[in-house]
Every structure is written in C-alpha cells, then in structure tokens.
C-alpha cells in the first residue's frame, strides 16, 4: 500500500540512531550521578539480608561470603533464632533507619526485624549496627542496643535517605525542560509533515 509522504527507511534509521545516542548519554549521566555514593544504611541492610540467609539451604554459602565481606557474621548471633526453617531467611522482614555519625569514620544505623520461626513471624529485634568506614566502603563492626532517638521510619524516625530540596526543584525544572522539548518535537513533526505534504502535492 503506497502512502503519501511516506518516511524513507534511511531517515528512520537515522532517528533510531539519534535516540540510541540520547539513551547512551542519559546512561552516562546517571552513572556519573551515582558515582561516589556509598551509604552506610545500604551496607547495613545488605549485611542483615545476607546474615538472614546464612541458614537458608542452597544460598547459605554465598550469603555467608557476602556477609563476611561487610562484617563478621558472628556479630549477628543474638539476632538469629535458636531454631529456624532452612527453606527461608531467618528474618521475616527487615527495615533500616538513618545513620547517625558517632565519630569521624563511624556511624550507627538502627534497624528493626522479626525473626522467622517455623510457625511464622517470631520476636521483634530492634537494635543498632555500628559501621566503620574503610576507604570508600562501610563495614559492620558491632551490634549495639539502641540509644534514645534511634528509630526506623515505620517507628516515626527519619527516612534512611532523603532527596534534597534542590533535587525536587531540579526535577520540576527538568519537567519544564521536557515539556519544552516535547513542544518542539511536536512542532517539528508538524512542520516536516506539512513540508512533505506540500512537496508531494507539487510533484503530483
């Protein structure tokens, strides 16, 4: 079926190439934005998740290795249930709170979890992990009882991380820029379509 003002395949390939370049550029931008972020809250969460899987059949070896890279598994002994179902993690849920500075390279991260028993969710554990910074990574060095004010978000504490105000304002700005780009693309599509239509009308 012949369609008036049809797009050439070469033009289509060119547009696809431009879109791919834009996507690659965005990928690089996001990679740059992410670079340099190493949050103690993330390390604490990952350590607890790995510790919870050290008794889980099939992934126990890998989980132990991953946990040991962040901190000694032995520190977690008070958190683990005395008996557990080896088909599941030893914790039925897990939430970490905001890190608080406790010295130049040390932070305290509150957490909350339930032990998993064969009969379902077990006792609640609310403690704090102490993490020490070594280079760009964080390591769990101790398990401590909570100090006053140390809470996770669901207990009314501050969020583990929060996007700064400048980012919210930046996002609104980006929304306006995107609207402008969308406006220009629509106008451009309109103009090229009109041009192609008048060209084919002249040709006929």
């Amino acid at each position, binding site marked *: 079926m012949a369609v008036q003002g049809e797009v050439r395949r070469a033009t289509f390939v060119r547009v696809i190439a431009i879109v791919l370049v834009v996507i690659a550029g965005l990928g690089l931008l996001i990679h740059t934005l992410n670079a340099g972020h190493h949050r103690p809250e993330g390390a604490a969460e990952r350590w607890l998740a790995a510790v919870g899987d050290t008794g889980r059949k099939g992934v126990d070896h890998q989980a132990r290795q991953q946990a040991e890279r962040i901190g000694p598994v032995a520190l977690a002994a008070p958190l683990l249930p005395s008996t557990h179902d080896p088909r599941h993690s030893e914790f039925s849920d897990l939430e970490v709170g905001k890190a608080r500075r406790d010295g130049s390279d040390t932070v305290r991260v509150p957490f909350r979890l339930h032990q998993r028993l064969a009969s379902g969710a077990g006792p609640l554990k609310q403690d704090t992990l102490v993490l020490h910074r070594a280079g760009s990574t964080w390591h769990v060095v101790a398990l401590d009882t909570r100090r006053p004010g140390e809470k*996770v978000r669901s207990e009314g504490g501050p969020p583990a991380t929060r996007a700064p105000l400048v980012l919210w304002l930046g996002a609104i700005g980006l929304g306006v820029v995107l609207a402008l780009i969308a406006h220009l693309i629509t106008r451009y599509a309109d103009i090229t379509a009109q041009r192609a239509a008048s060209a084919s009308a002249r040709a006929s």
Partner: protein
Amino acid sequence: MARSDRYLRLLLILLISATFFEGYDSSILALLLPNIQATFHVSEAVLGLTRIPIELGLFVAFFLARQSDRVGRRPLLLWSVVGYTLFAGLTALSWNIWAFTFFQFGSRVFLGAEFSVAITMVVEEFPVARRARALGTLLTFEGLGTIMVAILLGLGLQNGRLDWRAFFLVGIVPLLVLTVLRRRMHETERFVEERKRRERGEGTPRTPFLAAWASPYRRNLVLVGMVYLMRSIPFFGATAWWAYYAERERGFTETQVAVYILVAYGIGCVGYYVCGRLMERIGRRPTAIIYFLGGVVFSIILFQTTDRVVSFFALMLAVGFGLGVQPVLSAFGTELFPTEIRGQAAAWVRNWFEIAGYVFGPALVGILGDHSTGAIGNIGDTVSLLMIMQLPGIYLIWRYMPETKGLELDELSPVEALLTETPLA
C-alpha cells in the same frame, strides 16, 4: 461461514490464558522482588538493570507476532505457549540473576507474541457485535492475573519449599490446557482465505512498516507516542517497585502487601469504568488531564506517606487513576488516525513508545534508588521525582491533543485497534 457460538466460547477460553498470564507473569516480578533479591543477593541497581533486557522481550515479541501473517495464527499461538511454558519453567530453575534475566527475557518474547496473536484471533474470528465484549473479557483476565499473584502471595505460596520459584511453575498451566484442547482450535478463517489468495498470487499487500509515519499522520503519532512514553516511564517504575518499597522502606509484611494489592486492583477497575463514562460526558482531553493529575498526586502521596491508612487510600486512588486512564489513552491512540492506518499507528504507540516505559521505568528507579550507591538512595523519592515526568504529557494533552468526543469510527473500535495491527483484509 460464521463460527458457531460454541466454538467461539472455546476459543475465548483458550485465548484467556494468554492475557491472564501476561498480567500474572509481570506481577510476579513486581510483587516478589524482595524474595528474588534475597535469593540472588543483588543490589537494587542490579535488579533495576536486569529489567531492561527482560522487558525488551516484549519489544522482540512485536517482530515475532508479525510472523503470524506468514505462518498462521494457530501455529504461532501454539508455539508461543510452548515457548512461554519452557522459559517460565526454566525461570523457576534459575541459578543466578543473569540466568533468571535470560529466562525471563525468553518468557516475555513468547508471552508478548501470544498476547498479540490472541487479540488478532479475537478480532478476526468474532463478529463485530461481539468483538468488543470478547476483547473486554480478555483484558479483564490480564488484571485477574495480577490479582491471582496477590491471592497466592496472601496464601503464602512463597513460604513453601520452592519459595518464589513456585509462582513460575504455575506458568505450565496454559500448556496443559492447550495440550488437551489444541486439536479443537482452528486457523482463523480470514487467514485461510488470505493464504488461498496468496497461492493464487492475489494476496493483500501488507501495509509498509513505516506507513504510520507518513506526513498526514506523523504529528499525531509523535504527539500520542510522547504522551504514552511520559506516562509509562514513571507508571511502570512505580508498579514494578511498590511492593519492594512497602516492605523495605515502610516495614510492610508480605501479607499486608497482598491485601493492599487485592483491594487496590478492585478499585482500579472502577477507575477504568468511570474513565469510560467521563470521557463520553466531558470529553477526552479534560478526562485525560484529570486522570493524569490524579495519578501523579496520589502516587506521590503513596510513595511519601508513612501512615498506613493514608497509604491504603493513596494506593487505591493511584491505581484507580493510573490504571483507569487506559480507555482515554486507547481513544487517543486510535481515534486520531484513519481506519487504513489505525491498527499500525496503535501498534507503534504500544510496541515502541509504551514498551520504552516498561524497559526504562523500573531500571531508572532501581539504579537511582539503590540504597547503597544510588544518586537518590531510596525508592520512594525516586518514584516521586519520576512522577514529574508526567507533567510534559499533561501539557501536550492540554496544548495539542485534538478533542475526539462524538467522533464516528467507521470500522475498528478503539480497543481492538489499539491492541493489534490491522487484521487481514
């Protein structure tokens, strides 16, 4: 010769499995993300990145589905079911996140093709008067697929010996159904007629691949495509990560997540119905603007509040507005194009612009919201910030979208045109 009612009922039952499992399969990933992460010990960023190749499967499915014009609807549907079942089963056996990603990619390719061919078969086999209802039934089962995952989650299937893997083993059900009933499924009459014409050298010429981009349609295609894209990136980012966010950043249990999803999807259906009524009463543009704004506002509340009650209502309304906008989007995707190009324009909108959202939305949230290395560092703020991407979509609707209320369509209804390429003449 028209098909008998009995055959059409049987056909619909067979095809329902295709749409049901599209909803089911997509929802497993969304609702069991924390379990899958725990098994493979990967970061949020890696989980987000793996969504890119997985969802690209739906894009590849677009090309596989086009092969049904050559080999026939029936064989492609049957082989797609076999392919989907195989990859769903293999997903259950995944030994690491990359094996899981590859098997899910394969599963998406066949599931997408199965879905597309199922819609084409309904369009070609059902008489006009019953077509929209049959399509409506198929789409309803897509939503029921999500509800089924929530029910199984509530029943604790993930607590069994196989953990989340058991959910993927349910994917072998369509193969069992088709194994029993495949001999009773026939090739569509339109395809048989077309094949005969082709053998005589009188086949209908295919619409060129780029026909929808021709100058008369280009502006509307770009316009509708951008509206779809800017909605789908934040929307699919939000739906893919809500369960993870609720469990890891708000302390929800798996059971609470299951209950919230069940109720929210129930209300979501009401949003869909209200949208259909509203767009006829006040017009497409105002309805779309109301729904887009509602989706943005309630999604931001949902991903910011710590109050469980507020969260419950915000989820219901976010799903109601976010999912419920589909009828008016379908209208934009079809009513702005003439009949001869409508199906293809709708296919471009769905398979290129909307699927871009499936691919990049969840990935962006995972990478930027990674708790350890993400630039934003949490899922809640990342989704809320991405919601702002819908503002340009609202602007485009307000500034450029033509109002099509009361417009007569000569052949295809908006829903059927949106979901398939132009069926054979």
